[in-house]
């Protein structure tokens, strides 16, 4: 048993941290947040150049073929820097969908383009309010074309391809759901950006009108593939979340040491110290749970469904707590546009919803624990 990353993995993480500290200071996040750009192209290309985007993509598909533990440490650094790039949509969702369900030709076409930073991908799952559910999928697939609307779709307005969950039949069973791959440049899709709480990562409404699509994976297994995909993405995004949580905690700690009130650093008051201690506790528990998730993902262990839901719930709690208390420790300054606190607050709340709400994952976790206990 060993519950830590290896020296090589930590070295990779260190490399990614230094790289992002240089290439992705808060000013870069703000450029996208303030609408000057829909994502940071230079940063995206540079991440690809470092081999970070394709770290877990097999070599024969243009990646580094390293593994998921390596991808987890990269995800943590992306989250820490709030990188305004389509990482979660492309790497955590679209690439994973291709890897678990794609044909050889589909992988050959898109995975090398992801690794090189040339293609942005996404998952189009949601159709308005609500959590992941087979019944909620109305977008129709028939005769090789899709008709319907998906929203919100992460990075949908900048995506080159999308994995789309669609209804193929009317039996009312989960086997009516299939996954489809759509080339966004081939016509038939109208993408409209929509405002969201974290503009440093875009969201869009996609309208499909007789849009040509190819099947991804078996036609009747779309729903179970999707659940597996969400578990895998949950672990990877948990690492983005713990990276962000740690940084928000550090910002709060640094400010508490620096800011003087009543003749003392505010970090010497127990009200502040205890708030920071609770943030540390939450971030630490989330990190440990995420390591469990990383192990399950990297070994494709039977524990993955339980580990993914555990990591997801825990990392969501930690990032939200650290981000909101970071503002609180900063007081009035924390509520200004000028200070960076709101960037973490926005991202923490956007990521908390990205794969379905906290209550959805809590529910999933209890189902999975029941199954384990029954076994």
């Amino acid at each position, binding site marked *: *048993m*060993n*519950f*830590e*990353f*290896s020296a090589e993995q930590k070295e990779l993480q260190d490399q990614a941290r230094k790289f992002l500290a240089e290439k992705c200071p808060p000013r870069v996040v703000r450029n996208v947040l303030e609408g000057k750009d829909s994502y940071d192209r230079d940063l995206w290309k540079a991440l690809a150049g470092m081999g970070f985007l394709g770290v877990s993509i097999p070599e024969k598909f243009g990646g580094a073929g390293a593994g998921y*533990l390596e991808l987890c440490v990269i995800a943590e650094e992306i989250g820490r820097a709030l990188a305004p790039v389509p990482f979660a949509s492309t790497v955590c969702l679209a690439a994973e969908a291709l890897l678990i369900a794609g044909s050889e030709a589909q992988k050959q076409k898109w995975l090398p383009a992801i690794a090189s930073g040339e293609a942005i991908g996404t998952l189009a799952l949601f159709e308005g309010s609500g959590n992941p559910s087979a019944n909620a999928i109305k977008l129709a697939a028939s005769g090789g074309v899709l008709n319907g609307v998906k929203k919100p779709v992460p990075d949908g307005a900048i995506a080159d391809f999308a994995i789309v969950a669609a209804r193929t039949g009317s039996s009312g069973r989960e086997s009516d759901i299939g996954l489809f791959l759509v080339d966004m440049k081939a016509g038939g899709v109208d993408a409209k950006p929509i405002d969201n709480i974290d503009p440093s990562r875009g969201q869009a409404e996609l309208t499909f009108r007789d849009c040509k699509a190819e099947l991804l994976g078996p036609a009747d297994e779309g729903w179970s593939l999707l659940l597996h995909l969400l578990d895998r993405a949950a672990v990877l995004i948990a690492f983005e979340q713990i990276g962000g949580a740690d940084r928000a905690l550090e910002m709060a*700690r640094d400010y*508490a*040491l620096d800011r003087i009130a009543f003749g*003392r*650093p505010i*970090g*010497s008051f*127990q009200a*502040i*110290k*205890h708030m*920071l*201690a*609770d943030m*540390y*506790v939450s971030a*630490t*528990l*989330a*990190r*440990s*749970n995420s*390591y*469990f998730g*990383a*192990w*399950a993902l*990297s*070994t494709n*262990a039977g524990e993955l469904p339980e580990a993914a839901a*555990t990591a997801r*719930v*825990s990392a969501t*709690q930690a990032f939200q707590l650290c981000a909101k208390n970071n503002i609180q420790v900063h007081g009035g300054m924390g509520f200004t546009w000028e200070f960076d606190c709101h960037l973490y607050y926005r991202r923490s709340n956007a990521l908390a919803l990205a794969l379905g709400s906290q*209550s959805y*994952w*809590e*529910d999933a*976790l*209890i189902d999975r*624990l*029941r199954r384990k*206990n029954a076994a």
Partner: protein
Amino acid sequence: MDFGDTPQEAAFRNEVRQWIDANAPKHLEAELSKSSIGRVKLKSVDTLEAGKAWQRKKFEGGWSCLHWPKEYGGRGATPIERVIWQQEEGVYGKLNSPFVIGEGMCGPTLMAYASEADKRRYLPKLASGEEIWCQLFSEPASGSDVAGLRTRAERAGDDWVVNGQKIWTSGGHYSAYGILITRTDPTVPKHKGLTMFFVNMKSPGVEVKPIKQANGMQEFNEVYFTDVRIPDSQRLGAVGEGWNVSLTTLMNERMSIGSKLATGFQELFDFCSQLKTENGLAIEDRATRARLADWAVKNSGLKYTSYRALSALSRGERPGPENSIGKLVAGSMMQEIAMYALDLQGANGAVSDPALAEVAAQFQTMLLSSPSNRIAGGTDEILRNIIAERVLGLPGDIRVDKDVPFNQIPTRGRR
């Protein structure tokens, strides 16, 4: 990263499993499974005697104090092997509570400061459970502020004469020995005038008085010292160095990381899985599931945090104050879980008669004992201070008494 066993670990686990299967007190298994966590009181047998018998058996089989060196009664096992042992020991581990302070705190302090002859004399008997040890640190006027203690030790030839009072001494009434921190110089600031000893609890002048707790049980004691003579050979560390010796003791407490902290989660999960409400099983209720999920991730987060600390220990790193989070989280979690379990039972949740209450009043017992988990061994507030100051690097509290000679510090009677 590998959450599974290596082949050697799997072989070790197998050996442990076989030994436990052949030697554990199986006749107590059912009762132990049902007993409230943390505060075990068996009905069918004397709990202390059952614990001693299990400890003795483990010692004879070479399974006691696993991480201690063999010459002192241990096994020289690795930290990971200790965790494997704890996982496999399961419910029988509930019998260990009388021995935890000796194994985790007193023994390691003796190893660091006692003479070789004393180590060979005392440690194996501690490991076998024949002689139980306790810790005599807290006093009525110094709880969280332990360095404010007043028990005096004064030199008298080759002996020291001790007068004073200790409190919250777990197991003092059945302990053979204890480690005792005293004030030997009241004219210097409080941390500097302390000296550590070990003391025979049967010495003339030692009086142990049980404290009736808020939950009705008696596990803690007051211990009075009246002209108790302790030979200088039982001093641990130099005169005036008692504070640093106590830090060794506390650091060793952290070394016992990986030990399972009771949270009550599995008990609640099992309870919710079988409790019928008018809307079906409790676990099918959305609100209940949300609460359970929150506790589930805390429970697993604690488990894996302690395992990560273990990996650090295996690499030769010293466990640091970051391990304070275990008790901080587990303590209040158990209290909240107990309250929630009672809430699920409605008015009948107030019934504590084991014959009438759900799961033999397991949660009612937990409710009444749980306040102590947030106080004993460092209050929640002290633990948060430790995390804030020693992990996050925030300034220490303003301490008005730090550099003042002890005998000039204001007290209730002197201000």
